């Protein structure tokens, strides 16, 4: 068995379900891999660990990170994109007369993480009228300030925060998925060092395939054991939250939409990456003239692996 360390970008949750599934149901093992999942967190340094070769694969949030890597000359490459859509969402109170994404510009306050501020918010300011820095307030990963202030919005993962707000805050918030507003990045990509990929093509292929199979099984098969593993890693996780996440992932087509429907989970297409890059250059979020072809490879995906598991 080849030992592989895979670092996620957050604490264990249903959004990582496919990977846990592949671990617990023996898919990785079948593919000759012994995978250890290293949880992330708000300040965890899993990406730095990837760069320092302390882990082998990293779960990257969106492609902006990859653009930064190529800008800084860091040899990182995406080998699969598990989420076709970024689950990043802006959440607002109902009954505030907010109908479209642009309406968020009317709010005096948007709670955002610093990374959100320096990525999609820059895009929002460019792409829509009326967003401004004055709206920014820091999001400390606690939705209470948002709930306390009706005239505000906050960032979130469509699969997570809305659930907490609904159950604890007692109201059904309005959700504005960034992806639906035109923020067309892939998400939850599998990232590795370029050199590692070149030297271990077979291993990478096996990891990608097994992970994709894990995801099909997680979404359509018996995922109880995987959920148990998630709850073991993150004891704060509740069954309700997991069920909500899975439901939402399906509802919004996070994992399966676009190319994934034809070529299987994890599929990436050059055209979409380039289009997103141009969009971001236009918004002034990233530098122009980067060679974005370096940041991904489609060699390992879009092969229809595991599509037969879908029921």
């Amino acid at each position, binding site marked *: 068995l080849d030992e592989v360390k895979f670092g996620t970008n957050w604490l264990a949750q249903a959004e990582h379900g496919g990977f846990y599934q592949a671990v617990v149901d023996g898919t990785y093992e079948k593919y000759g891999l012994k995978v250890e999942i290293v949880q992330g967190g708000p300040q965890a340094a899993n990406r730095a660990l990837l760069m320092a070769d302390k882990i082998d694969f990293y779960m990257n949030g969106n492609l902006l990170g990859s653009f930064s890597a190529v800008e800084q000359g860091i040899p990182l490459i995406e080998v699969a994109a598990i989420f076709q859509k970024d689950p990043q969402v802006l959440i607002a109170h109902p009954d505030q007369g907010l109908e479209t994404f642009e309406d968020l510009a009317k709010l005096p306050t948007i709670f955002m993480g610093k990374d959100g501020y320096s990525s999609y918010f820059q895009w929002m300011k460019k792409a829509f009228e009326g967003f401004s820095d004055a709206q920014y307030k820091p999001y400390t990963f606690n939705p209470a300030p948002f*709930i306390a202030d009706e005239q505000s919005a906050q960032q979130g993962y469509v699969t997570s925060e809305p659930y907490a707000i609904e159950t604890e805050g007692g109201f059904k918030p309005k959700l504005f998925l960034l992806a639906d507003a035109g923020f067309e990045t892939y998400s939850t990509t599998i990232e590795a060092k370029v050199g590692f990929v070149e030297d271990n093509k077979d291993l990478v292929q096996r990891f990608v395939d097994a992970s994709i199979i894990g995801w099909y099984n997680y979404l359509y098969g018996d995922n109880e054991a995987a959920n148990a593993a998630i709850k073991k890693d993150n004891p704060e996780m509740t069954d309700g939250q997991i069920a909500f996440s899975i439901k939402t992932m399906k509802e919004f087509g996070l994992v399966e939409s676009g190319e994934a429907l034809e070529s299987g989970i994890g599929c990436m297409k050059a055209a979409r990456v380039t289009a997103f890059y141009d969009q971001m250059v236009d918004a002034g979020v990233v530098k122009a003239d980067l060679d974005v072809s370096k940041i991904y490879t489609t060699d390992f995906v879009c092969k229809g692996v595991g599509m037969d598991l879908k029921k």
Partner: protein
Amino acid sequence: MTMATVDNQHSLSGEKNRKATKSLPEAARWISVAGRMAIPLMMLVLLITAWSLYVWAFDVPHYILPSPMRVAVALYTDWPILAPALLVTLKITFTALTIALVGGVALAVLMAQSRIAERALYPYAVILQVTPIVAIAPLILIYAPSTQAALLICAWIVAFFPILSNTVQGLKSTDHNLLNLFELYGASRWQTLVYLKMPNALPYFLAGLKIAGGLALIAAVVAEFAAGSAGAGSGLAFRLLESQFRLNIPRLFAALFLLSLTGVAIFLTTNTISYLLLRKWHESALKREN
């Protein structure tokens, strides 16, 4: 007028508590201890009442500020989750405090013994103090042999400086006459350090310890944020974070309460140590008798 009556016909200005409990029987001593506890406890009751009233009167939603009752319930029901996390945090705290103590005192001694060492090293001690852990955690994680080690390094960085700084000040505050005496009797540097400078630095060191005790706890939490191992073996920091994220605010407060309690316990311990070490001779711990 019998000999045994205390009958001061004039009352003295100044503090009355000098007329202390020294010769009282055991029972009375306990009453006095109880009296000493009474004020903080009253304060606690007051605070909790005010908090309850505020939550009740303004109908504050529990996800913003839970009532004390709710926090108590969370503490009770979540105890099986919180207790092991507390243990982990305590372990890091005490390990960090221990190495902060050893490291801080060792550095202080080095600096007090040699001007060159002081000038060469102090700036770097300061730099360590002012470097935000979050920013260098990745580096530490990369170079540390294990996450556990990384955690301890982070915690140490936060906690060692107060001990270092106070101990240096204490070591330097040695009475010059006593230094002369030691020089005269041909004391070696080491003897001067152990028999003179160190006892003399004790009050300063202990003040530093009081700061470092709380700081080590904070350091353990911060280190866990920055470099932490998540999951089953994680400490209070992760409980805090996830509780927040999940809007389980009563549990967040229960965790905070445990942290506070730990902090106060550490403080009382360092305070007691300080009292025991100084009570025989240092002004700060002596009762005024003459």
